[in-house]
Protein backbone atom coordinates (compact mmCIF):
# COMPACT_ATOMS: atom_id res chain seq x y z
CA UNK A 1 0.00 0.00 0.00
CA UNK A 2 2.76 2.39 0.90
CA UNK A 3 5.79 2.16 -1.24
CA UNK A 4 8.53 4.61 -1.81
CA UNK A 5 10.85 3.80 -4.68
CA UNK A 6 12.25 5.00 -7.96
CA UNK A 7 8.82 6.21 -9.02
CA UNK A 8 9.46 9.24 -6.85
CA UNK A 9 12.23 10.24 -9.22
CA UNK A 10 10.00 9.57 -12.20
CA UNK A 11 7.38 11.85 -10.72
CA UNK A 12 9.97 14.58 -10.22
CA UNK A 13 11.01 14.24 -13.86
CA UNK A 14 7.39 14.20 -14.95
CA UNK A 15 6.71 17.37 -13.00
CA UNK A 16 9.68 19.18 -14.47
CA UNK A 17 8.71 18.12 -17.99
CA UNK A 18 5.11 19.14 -17.37
CA UNK A 19 6.30 22.47 -16.01
CA UNK A 20 8.40 23.15 -19.10
CA UNK A 21 5.60 22.08 -21.45
CA UNK A 22 2.90 24.08 -19.73
CA UNK A 23 5.13 27.12 -19.46
CA UNK A 24 5.76 26.95 -23.17
CA UNK A 25 2.26 26.04 -24.32
CA UNK A 26 0.00 27.69 -21.76
CA UNK A 27 1.48 30.39 -19.58
CA UNK A 28 3.67 32.15 -22.11
CA UNK A 29 1.09 32.52 -24.91
CA UNK A 30 -1.75 33.55 -22.63
CA UNK A 31 0.22 35.94 -20.48
CA UNK A 32 1.91 37.31 -23.60
CA UNK A 33 -1.45 38.09 -25.12
CA UNK A 34 -2.67 39.68 -21.89
CA UNK A 35 0.46 41.81 -21.67
CA UNK A 36 0.14 42.86 -25.29
CA UNK A 37 -3.44 43.89 -24.75
CA UNK A 38 -2.51 45.78 -21.61
CA UNK A 39 0.23 47.60 -23.51
CA UNK A 40 -2.25 48.41 -26.26
CA UNK A 41 -4.83 49.72 -23.78
CA UNK A 42 -2.16 51.68 -21.95
CA UNK A 43 -1.04 53.24 -25.22
CA UNK A 44 -4.60 54.15 -26.10
CA UNK A 45 -5.18 55.62 -22.67
CA UNK A 46 -1.99 57.64 -22.96
CA UNK A 47 -2.94 59.00 -26.36
CA UNK A 48 -6.45 59.72 -25.11
CA UNK A 49 -5.12 61.70 -22.17
CA UNK A 50 -2.73 63.52 -24.48
CA UNK A 51 -5.59 64.42 -26.80
CA UNK A 52 -7.64 65.59 -23.89
CA UNK A 53 -4.82 67.75 -22.61
CA UNK A 54 -4.45 69.32 -26.04
CA UNK A 55 -8.18 69.89 -26.21
CA UNK A 56 -8.12 71.55 -22.82
CA UNK A 57 -5.31 73.82 -23.90
CA UNK A 58 -7.21 74.82 -27.02
CA UNK A 59 -10.33 75.38 -24.99
CA UNK A 60 -8.58 77.70 -22.57
CA UNK A 61 -7.08 79.56 -25.53
CA UNK A 62 -10.48 80.01 -27.10
CA UNK A 63 -11.96 81.05 -23.82
CA UNK A 64 -9.29 83.68 -23.40
CA UNK A 65 -9.91 84.92 -26.94
CA UNK A 66 -13.62 85.01 -26.28
CA UNK A 67 -13.17 86.90 -23.05
CA UNK A 68 -10.96 89.41 -24.93
CA UNK A 69 -13.63 89.79 -27.58
CA UNK A 70 -16.26 90.34 -24.94
CA UNK A 71 -14.19 93.09 -23.34
CA UNK A 72 -13.54 94.68 -26.69
CA UNK A 73 -17.22 94.62 -27.55
CA UNK A 74 -18.06 96.24 -24.27
CA UNK A 75 -15.45 98.88 -24.91
CA UNK A 76 -16.86 99.56 -28.33
CA UNK A 77 -20.37 99.87 -27.00
CA UNK A 78 -19.21 102.15 -24.20
CA UNK A 79 -17.30 104.32 -26.62
CA UNK A 80 -20.31 104.52 -28.90
CA UNK A 81 -22.51 105.42 -25.97
CA UNK A 82 -20.11 108.16 -24.90
CA UNK A 83 -20.00 109.48 -28.42
CA UNK A 84 -23.76 109.45 -28.70
CA UNK A 85 -24.10 111.23 -25.40
CA UNK A 86 -21.64 113.88 -26.46
CA UNK A 87 -23.47 114.31 -29.75
CA UNK A 88 -26.78 114.57 -27.94
CA UNK A 89 -25.42 117.17 -25.58
CA UNK A 90 -23.96 119.10 -28.45
CA UNK A 91 -27.21 119.02 -30.41
CA UNK A 92 -29.24 120.14 -27.41
CA UNK A 93 -26.78 122.90 -26.70
CA UNK A 94 -26.94 124.01 -30.29
CA UNK A 95 -30.73 123.91 -30.28
CA UNK A 96 -30.84 125.90 -27.07
CA UNK A 97 -28.50 128.49 -28.51
CA UNK A 98 -30.51 128.71 -31.66
CA UNK A 99 -33.75 129.01 -29.73
CA UNK A 100 -32.21 131.73 -27.56
CA UNK A 101 -31.02 133.56 -30.62
CA UNK A 102 -34.41 133.31 -32.28
CA UNK A 103 -36.14 134.55 -29.14
CA UNK A 104 -33.75 137.41 -28.88
CA UNK A 105 -34.26 138.38 -32.53
CA UNK A 106 -37.98 138.10 -32.09
CA UNK A 107 -37.80 140.29 -29.02
CA UNK A 108 -35.77 142.97 -30.76
CA UNK A 109 -38.11 142.81 -33.75
CA UNK A 110 -41.12 143.24 -31.47
CA UNK A 111 -39.42 146.10 -29.67
CA UNK A 112 -38.59 147.80 -32.94
CA UNK A 113 -42.14 147.38 -34.16
CA UNK A 114 -43.48 148.86 -31.00
CA UNK A 115 -41.18 151.82 -31.15
CA UNK A 116 -42.15 152.46 -34.71
CA UNK A 117 -45.78 152.15 -33.77
CA UNK A 118 -45.32 154.52 -30.88
CA UNK A 119 -43.58 157.04 -33.10
CA UNK A 120 -46.41 156.81 -35.64
CA UNK A 121 -48.92 157.25 -32.88
CA UNK A 122 -47.14 160.23 -31.49
CA UNK A 123 -47.03 161.74 -34.96
CA UNK A 124 -50.76 161.17 -35.38
CA UNK A 125 -51.50 162.56 -31.93
CA UNK A 126 -49.37 165.55 -32.77
CA UNK A 127 -51.15 165.91 -36.14
CA UNK A 128 -54.56 165.69 -34.49
CA UNK A 129 -53.62 168.20 -31.88
CA UNK A 130 -52.43 170.51 -34.62
CA UNK A 131 -55.61 170.08 -36.63
CA UNK A 132 -57.67 170.68 -33.48
CA UNK A 133 -55.79 173.82 -32.75
CA UNK A 134 -56.15 174.91 -36.36
CA UNK A 135 -59.91 174.31 -36.16
CA UNK A 136 -60.26 176.25 -32.97
CA UNK A 137 -58.24 179.11 -34.33
CA UNK A 138 -59.86 179.14 -37.78
CA UNK A 139 -63.50 178.90 -36.76
CA UNK A 140 -63.25 181.29 -33.67
CA UNK A 141 -65.79 179.49 -31.71
CA UNK A 142 -68.12 180.89 -29.19
CA UNK A 143 -68.07 180.21 -25.52
CA UNK A 144 -71.03 177.91 -25.66
CA UNK A 145 -69.59 175.95 -28.45
CA UNK A 146 -66.34 175.25 -26.66
CA UNK A 147 -67.63 172.29 -24.67
CA UNK A 148 -69.14 170.62 -27.75
CA UNK A 149 -65.97 171.27 -29.59
CA UNK A 150 -64.03 169.63 -26.86
CA UNK A 151 -66.26 166.67 -27.04
CA UNK A 152 -65.82 166.54 -30.75
CA UNK A 153 -62.06 166.64 -30.36
CA UNK A 154 -62.12 163.81 -27.91
CA UNK A 155 -64.37 161.80 -30.15
CA UNK A 156 -62.13 162.36 -33.12
CA UNK A 157 -58.97 161.45 -31.30
CA UNK A 158 -60.54 158.42 -29.72
CA UNK A 159 -61.92 157.33 -33.04
CA UNK A 160 -58.56 157.63 -34.70
CA UNK A 161 -56.94 155.84 -31.83
CA UNK A 162 -59.51 153.09 -32.00
CA UNK A 163 -59.10 152.71 -35.70
CA UNK A 164 -55.35 152.55 -35.31
CA UNK A 165 -55.59 149.87 -32.72
CA UNK A 166 -57.87 147.83 -34.77
Amino acid sequence: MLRIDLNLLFTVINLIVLFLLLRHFLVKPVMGIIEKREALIQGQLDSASQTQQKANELKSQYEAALAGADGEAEQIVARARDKAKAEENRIIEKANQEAGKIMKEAKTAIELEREQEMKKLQNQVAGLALSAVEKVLSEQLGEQQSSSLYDQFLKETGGTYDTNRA
Partner: protein
Amino acid sequence: MRKEGSYTDSIIDNLIEELECETVFSIGGIGIAESVVVTWIIMAVLVIASIFLTRNLKVENPGKRQLALEAAVGGLFHFFDDILGKDGRRYVPYLMTVALYIGVSNIIGIFGFKPPTKDLNVTIALAVMSIVLIEYSGFHKKGLKGFIRSFIEPVPVLLPINIMELFIKPVSLCMRLFGNILGAFVIMELLKAIVPAIVPIPFSAYFDLFDGLIQAYVFVFLTTLFMSEQMETE
Protein backbone atom coordinates in the same frame (compact mmCIF):
# COMPACT_ATOMS: atom_id res chain seq x y z
CA MET B 1 -23.21 -15.20 9.38
CA ARG B 2 -20.57 -16.99 7.39
CA LYS B 3 -22.00 -15.51 4.26
CA GLU B 4 -21.87 -11.96 5.64
CA GLY B 5 -18.34 -12.52 6.83
CA SER B 6 -17.24 -13.58 3.39
CA TYR B 7 -18.98 -10.53 1.92
CA THR B 8 -17.08 -8.19 4.25
CA ASP B 9 -13.88 -10.08 3.46
CA SER B 10 -14.42 -9.65 -0.23
CA ILE B 11 -15.01 -5.91 0.25
CA ILE B 12 -11.81 -5.64 2.25
CA ASP B 13 -9.90 -7.64 -0.34
CA ASN B 14 -11.27 -5.44 -3.06
CA LEU B 15 -10.38 -2.29 -1.12
CA ILE B 16 -6.84 -3.47 -0.47
CA GLU B 17 -6.49 -4.24 -4.13
CA GLU B 18 -7.75 -0.78 -5.00
CA LEU B 19 -5.40 0.85 -2.52
CA GLU B 20 -2.41 -1.03 -3.88
CA CYS B 21 -0.15 1.10 -5.98
CA GLU B 22 0.14 -1.30 -8.83
CA THR B 23 3.05 -1.65 -11.12
CA VAL B 24 1.73 -1.25 -14.61
CA PHE B 25 4.81 -2.50 -16.40
CA SER B 26 8.52 -2.68 -15.80
CA ILE B 27 11.46 -1.68 -17.87
CA GLY B 28 14.69 -3.46 -17.04
CA GLY B 29 13.48 -4.51 -13.64
CA ILE B 30 12.23 -1.05 -12.73
CA GLY B 31 8.53 -1.15 -12.04
CA ILE B 32 6.62 1.82 -13.35
CA ALA B 33 3.84 2.61 -10.90
CA GLU B 34 0.27 3.30 -11.88
CA SER B 35 0.56 6.84 -10.54
CA VAL B 36 3.34 7.62 -12.99
CA VAL B 37 1.31 6.31 -15.89
CA VAL B 38 -1.72 8.33 -14.80
CA THR B 39 0.57 11.33 -14.48
CA TRP B 40 1.59 10.82 -18.10
CA ILE B 41 -2.05 10.78 -19.08
CA ILE B 42 -2.68 13.96 -17.11
CA MET B 43 0.35 15.58 -18.70
CA ALA B 44 -0.84 14.64 -22.15
CA VAL B 45 -4.33 15.96 -21.44
CA LEU B 46 -3.03 19.23 -20.02
CA VAL B 47 -0.59 19.84 -22.84
CA ILE B 48 -3.02 18.96 -25.59
CA ALA B 49 -5.71 21.10 -23.96
CA SER B 50 -3.20 23.97 -23.72
CA ILE B 51 -2.21 23.70 -27.36
CA PHE B 52 -5.84 23.48 -28.40
CA LEU B 53 -6.94 26.40 -26.22
CA THR B 54 -4.09 28.73 -27.13
CA ARG B 55 -4.67 28.51 -30.88
CA ASN B 56 -5.54 31.79 -32.61
CA LEU B 57 -5.11 34.05 -29.64
CA LYS B 58 -5.99 37.59 -30.60
CA VAL B 59 -5.03 40.85 -28.97
CA GLU B 60 -8.21 42.52 -30.12
CA ASN B 61 -11.73 41.09 -30.13
CA PRO B 62 -10.97 37.86 -28.29
CA GLY B 63 -13.57 35.11 -28.52
CA LYS B 64 -15.41 33.58 -25.60
CA ARG B 65 -12.96 30.67 -25.45
CA GLN B 66 -10.02 33.03 -25.23
CA LEU B 67 -11.71 35.21 -22.63
CA ALA B 68 -12.43 32.20 -20.43
CA LEU B 69 -8.87 30.97 -20.88
CA GLU B 70 -7.43 34.38 -20.08
CA ALA B 71 -9.63 34.73 -17.01
CA ALA B 72 -8.53 31.31 -15.74
CA VAL B 73 -4.81 31.57 -16.52
CA GLY B 74 -4.61 35.26 -15.63
CA GLY B 75 -6.51 34.68 -12.40
CA LEU B 76 -4.20 31.85 -11.39
CA PHE B 77 -1.16 33.90 -12.36
CA HIS B 78 -2.24 36.91 -10.37
CA PHE B 79 -3.19 34.79 -7.40
CA PHE B 80 0.45 33.72 -7.04
CA ASP B 81 1.88 36.96 -8.29
CA ASP B 82 0.04 38.98 -5.64
CA ILE B 83 1.53 36.87 -2.87
CA LEU B 84 5.05 36.58 -4.26
CA GLY B 85 5.50 40.06 -5.67
CA LYS B 86 7.92 41.14 -8.37
CA ASP B 87 10.87 39.05 -7.19
CA GLY B 88 8.87 35.86 -7.16
CA ARG B 89 7.36 36.24 -10.61
CA ARG B 90 9.81 33.74 -12.08
CA TYR B 91 8.39 30.95 -9.88
CA VAL B 92 4.77 31.57 -10.81
CA PRO B 93 4.63 29.27 -13.88
CA TYR B 94 5.89 26.36 -11.81
CA LEU B 95 3.30 26.99 -9.10
CA MET B 96 0.61 27.19 -11.75
CA THR B 97 1.77 23.88 -13.18
CA VAL B 98 1.65 22.24 -9.75
CA ALA B 99 -1.79 23.72 -9.05
CA LEU B 100 -3.14 22.38 -12.34
CA TYR B 101 -1.47 19.02 -11.88
CA ILE B 102 -2.69 18.44 -8.31
CA GLY B 103 -6.13 19.78 -9.18
CA VAL B 104 -6.52 17.43 -12.12
CA SER B 105 -4.97 14.54 -10.19
CA ASN B 106 -7.35 14.93 -7.29
CA ILE B 107 -10.48 14.97 -9.38
CA ILE B 108 -9.39 12.35 -11.89
CA GLY B 109 -11.00 9.75 -9.62
CA ILE B 110 -14.26 10.81 -11.20
CA PHE B 111 -13.08 9.39 -14.51
CA GLY B 112 -12.23 6.07 -12.93
CA PHE B 113 -8.47 6.55 -12.63
CA LYS B 114 -6.66 6.18 -9.37
CA PRO B 115 -5.56 9.66 -8.32
CA PRO B 116 -1.75 9.87 -8.54
CA THR B 117 -1.79 11.97 -5.38
CA LYS B 118 -2.94 8.83 -3.56
CA ASP B 119 0.56 7.47 -4.14
CA LEU B 120 3.04 8.56 -1.52
CA ASN B 121 5.76 8.75 -4.17
CA VAL B 122 3.95 11.57 -5.92
CA THR B 123 3.21 13.63 -2.85
CA ILE B 124 6.77 13.18 -1.60
CA ALA B 125 8.06 14.29 -4.97
CA LEU B 126 5.81 17.33 -4.90
CA ALA B 127 6.82 18.21 -1.36
CA VAL B 128 10.53 17.78 -2.08
CA MET B 129 10.28 20.02 -5.10
CA SER B 130 8.35 22.56 -3.05
CA ILE B 131 10.93 22.71 -0.26
CA VAL B 132 13.76 22.92 -2.79
CA LEU B 133 11.97 25.78 -4.50
CA ILE B 134 11.20 27.48 -1.16
CA GLU B 135 14.82 27.36 -0.04
CA TYR B 136 16.12 28.24 -3.48
CA SER B 137 13.90 31.31 -3.67
CA GLY B 138 15.37 32.54 -0.38
CA PHE B 139 18.89 31.73 -1.54
CA HIS B 140 18.38 33.48 -4.87
CA LYS B 141 16.97 36.57 -3.24
CA LYS B 142 19.35 36.99 -0.32
CA GLY B 143 22.55 35.36 -1.53
CA LEU B 144 24.49 32.71 0.38
CA LYS B 145 25.21 34.87 3.41
CA GLY B 146 21.68 36.11 3.78
CA PHE B 147 20.34 32.62 3.25
CA ILE B 148 22.50 31.17 6.03
CA ARG B 149 21.72 34.10 8.29
CA SER B 150 18.02 33.50 7.78
CA PHE B 151 18.41 30.36 9.92
CA ILE B 152 19.32 32.37 13.00
CA GLU B 153 16.60 34.90 12.54
CA PRO B 154 14.84 36.47 14.30
CA VAL B 155 16.98 35.16 17.21
CA PRO B 156 19.82 32.59 17.16
CA VAL B 157 17.97 30.42 19.69
CA LEU B 158 15.57 29.49 16.91
CA LEU B 159 18.32 27.79 14.85
CA PRO B 160 17.23 24.22 15.66
CA ILE B 161 13.59 25.06 14.95
CA ASN B 162 14.53 26.71 11.67
CA ILE B 163 16.48 23.62 10.65
CA MET B 164 13.62 21.35 11.70
CA GLU B 165 11.29 23.44 9.58
CA LEU B 166 13.27 22.36 6.55
CA PHE B 167 11.83 18.89 7.11
CA ILE B 168 8.56 19.74 8.81
CA LYS B 169 7.31 21.88 5.95
CA PRO B 170 7.64 19.27 3.21
CA VAL B 171 6.43 16.46 5.45
CA SER B 172 3.32 18.37 6.42
CA LEU B 173 2.70 19.36 2.80
CA CYS B 174 3.16 15.81 1.56
CA MET B 175 1.19 14.08 4.29
CA ARG B 176 -1.71 16.51 4.20
CA LEU B 177 -2.24 15.94 0.52
CA PHE B 178 -1.63 12.21 0.70
CA GLY B 179 -3.88 11.70 3.73
CA ASN B 180 -6.75 13.69 2.34
CA ILE B 181 -6.76 12.03 -1.04
CA LEU B 182 -6.20 8.55 0.39
CA GLY B 183 -8.99 9.08 2.94
CA ALA B 184 -11.36 10.35 0.30
CA PHE B 185 -10.43 7.45 -1.96
CA VAL B 186 -11.01 4.84 0.77
CA ILE B 187 -14.39 6.32 1.68
CA MET B 188 -15.44 6.43 -1.95
CA GLU B 189 -14.31 2.83 -2.56
CA LEU B 190 -16.21 1.62 0.51
CA LEU B 191 -19.32 3.51 -0.55
CA LYS B 192 -19.11 2.17 -4.07
CA ALA B 193 -18.70 -1.38 -2.74
CA ILE B 194 -21.71 -1.12 -0.41
CA VAL B 195 -24.13 1.15 -2.32
CA PRO B 196 -23.06 1.31 -5.91
CA ALA B 197 -25.93 3.46 -7.19
CA ILE B 198 -26.83 7.14 -6.76
CA VAL B 199 -25.70 7.49 -3.14
CA PRO B 200 -22.02 7.95 -4.09
CA ILE B 201 -22.87 10.95 -6.29
CA PRO B 202 -23.07 13.65 -3.57
CA PHE B 203 -20.16 12.04 -1.73
CA SER B 204 -18.15 11.99 -4.91
CA ALA B 205 -18.98 15.67 -5.44
CA TYR B 206 -17.61 16.44 -2.01
CA PHE B 207 -14.63 14.09 -1.75
CA ASP B 208 -13.45 14.07 -5.35
CA LEU B 209 -14.29 17.57 -6.51
CA PHE B 210 -14.48 19.84 -3.49
CA ASP B 211 -11.87 18.22 -1.28
CA GLY B 212 -9.62 17.55 -4.24
CA LEU B 213 -9.64 21.16 -5.37
CA ILE B 214 -9.31 22.45 -1.80
CA GLN B 215 -6.26 20.26 -1.26
CA ALA B 216 -4.69 21.44 -4.51
CA TYR B 217 -5.35 25.02 -3.42
CA VAL B 218 -3.93 24.43 0.08
CA PHE B 219 -0.79 22.77 -1.27
CA VAL B 220 0.16 25.52 -3.69
CA PHE B 221 -1.05 28.28 -1.38
CA LEU B 222 1.17 27.04 1.47
CA THR B 223 4.12 26.61 -0.86
CA THR B 224 3.65 30.16 -2.10
CA LEU B 225 3.32 31.50 1.43
CA PHE B 226 6.49 29.72 2.55
CA MET B 227 8.29 31.14 -0.47
CA SER B 228 7.20 34.70 0.18
CA GLU B 229 8.19 34.24 3.81
CA GLN B 230 11.58 32.97 2.72
CA MET B 231 12.09 35.88 0.34
CA GLU B 232 11.16 38.45 2.94
CA THR B 233 14.04 40.76 3.72
CA GLU B 234 14.20 42.62 6.94
